[in-house]
């Protein structure tokens, strides 16, 4: 070991020059990321390097989890088992009905010669951490490219829609929650069938149904489900419950706030729906085909 000599004269570029250089590069990265999304590959490389560190950082919390699980009492477990069994019974009944309905639905769709709605493949994932960045509502989940997760796939939990995969790293992916300021979900009121778009506002526990006319048939307590017209979310996933409807003549639209159905920031287990039904091309952008190849059935 040698005593490092303090530099007597400054060598190389001055601190200000270095600062300018690095801050310019950082600004360029910020613009490239926020405007053009060019840097996915760079981010993936950094993510791979970071992966072991993240595992190390998460280890203590996981250990604590396991310890608290170890010390769960017999009574707690029995109680939980009972509730789950009851829940299972209810679910089984619903499932039986669902199977019958699915069969019937398939037959009807066959009759109508429409696109069969595909059954959903899903990947189970765990939320590694949440809310690091107070500006956005995003979480990192434990599955990534290696588990067939792709950008845009919907993420749900037991109660409803949680969000959407917005970035995929090799062993993890980033999910933007529906409460994020930039997230919108096309929804439908279950009771009346009215369609609308649900906006996140950037705070937990609140969503807004914007641009709905005064006369729209929406009441407090209405359940909102995905309408499925966007091709991202399959139809019928519970999204939110209407909490407050304010019809004020001073504004152009009714102000409708809703509460997310899913435990957007409560649970740790989520499902990523990996195989959603292929959505037909937007006819507006389709090149006019000279001839339809597909023959009509049963002419």
């Amino acid at each position, binding site marked *: 070991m040698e005593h490092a000599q303090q530099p007597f004269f400054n060598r190389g570029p001055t*601190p200000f020059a270095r600062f300018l250089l690095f801050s310019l590069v950082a600004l360029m990265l*910020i613009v490239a*990321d926020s405007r053009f999304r060019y840097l996915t590959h760079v981010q993936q490389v950094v993510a791979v390097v970071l992966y072991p560190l993240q595992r190390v*950082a998460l280890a203590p919390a996981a250990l604590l989890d396991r310890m608290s699980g170890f010390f769960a009492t017999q009574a707690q477990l029995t109680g939980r088992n009972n509730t789950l069994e009851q829940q299972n019974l209810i679910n089984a009944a619903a499932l039986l009905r669902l199977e019958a309905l699915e069969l019937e639905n398939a037959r009807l769709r066959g009759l109508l010669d429409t696109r069969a709605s595909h059954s959903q493949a899903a990947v189970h994932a765990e939320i590694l951490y949440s809310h690091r*960045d107070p500006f*956005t509502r*995003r979480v990192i989940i434990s599955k990534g490219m290696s588990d067939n997760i792709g950008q845009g796939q919907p993420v749900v939990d037991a109660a409803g829609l949680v969000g959407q995969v917005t970035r995929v790293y090799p062993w993890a992916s980033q999910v933007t929650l529906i409460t994020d300021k930039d997230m919108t979900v096309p929804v439908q009121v279950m009771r009346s069938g009215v369609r609308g778009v649900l906006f996140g506002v950037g705070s937990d526990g609140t969503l807004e149904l914007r641009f709905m006319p005064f006369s729209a048939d929406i009441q407090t307590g209405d359940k909102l489900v995905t309408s499925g017209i966007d091709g991202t979310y399959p139809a019928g996933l519970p999204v939110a419950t209407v909490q407050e409807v304010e019809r004020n003549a001073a504004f152009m639209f009714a102000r409708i706030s809703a509460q997310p159905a899913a435990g957007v920031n409560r649970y740790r287990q989520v499902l990523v729906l990996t195989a959603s039904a292929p959505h037909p091309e937007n006819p507006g952008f389709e090149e006019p085909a000279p001839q339809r190849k597909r023959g009509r059935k049963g002419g």
Partner: protein
Amino acid sequence: MGMSIGPRQELLLPVRPGFLWFTLLVALIANLLPWDGVWTWLKPDFVALALLFWIVREPRLIGFGVAFALGLAMDVAQASLFGQHALAYTVVALGATLLRRRLRMFSTDKHILQILPILLTAQAVILLVRLAGGAAFPGWTWFVSPFTGALLWPLVWIVLLAPQRPRIDPEHPI
């Protein structure tokens, strides 16, 4: 006797570069811990503190490049805008470079008020970048963590300098 301006001067052993890199790694892991609840805004930015310390102490070993790289790592880990922490840590590196000689004149408790503006500026830079990108203001709690960081500074100084303090053998003081 009233004449001395600076803190009590110490003779220190030279730094081990391995320890420097190790502490930066530990700081990064500390930032990546799953902080929850109030801790999300109360916790100091450990990487910024470690960077500040090492750039002040060992400017020949680390500088802007390391600060920038650690910033990129933080951005990917936090799923935030790519480059925002890189920019913030570049600001920290500039502050550390400018304050390097001055800090040696003061004892560590007097450092607090001098490094606070650096940490606040870095935090403000992130806020400005995000606001320019259309994000909503996250509330004034955003500016708490620089204060926690500055208050932790004397502790950082003691811990990170500990391996360099010579162990004095009582049998042979010299």
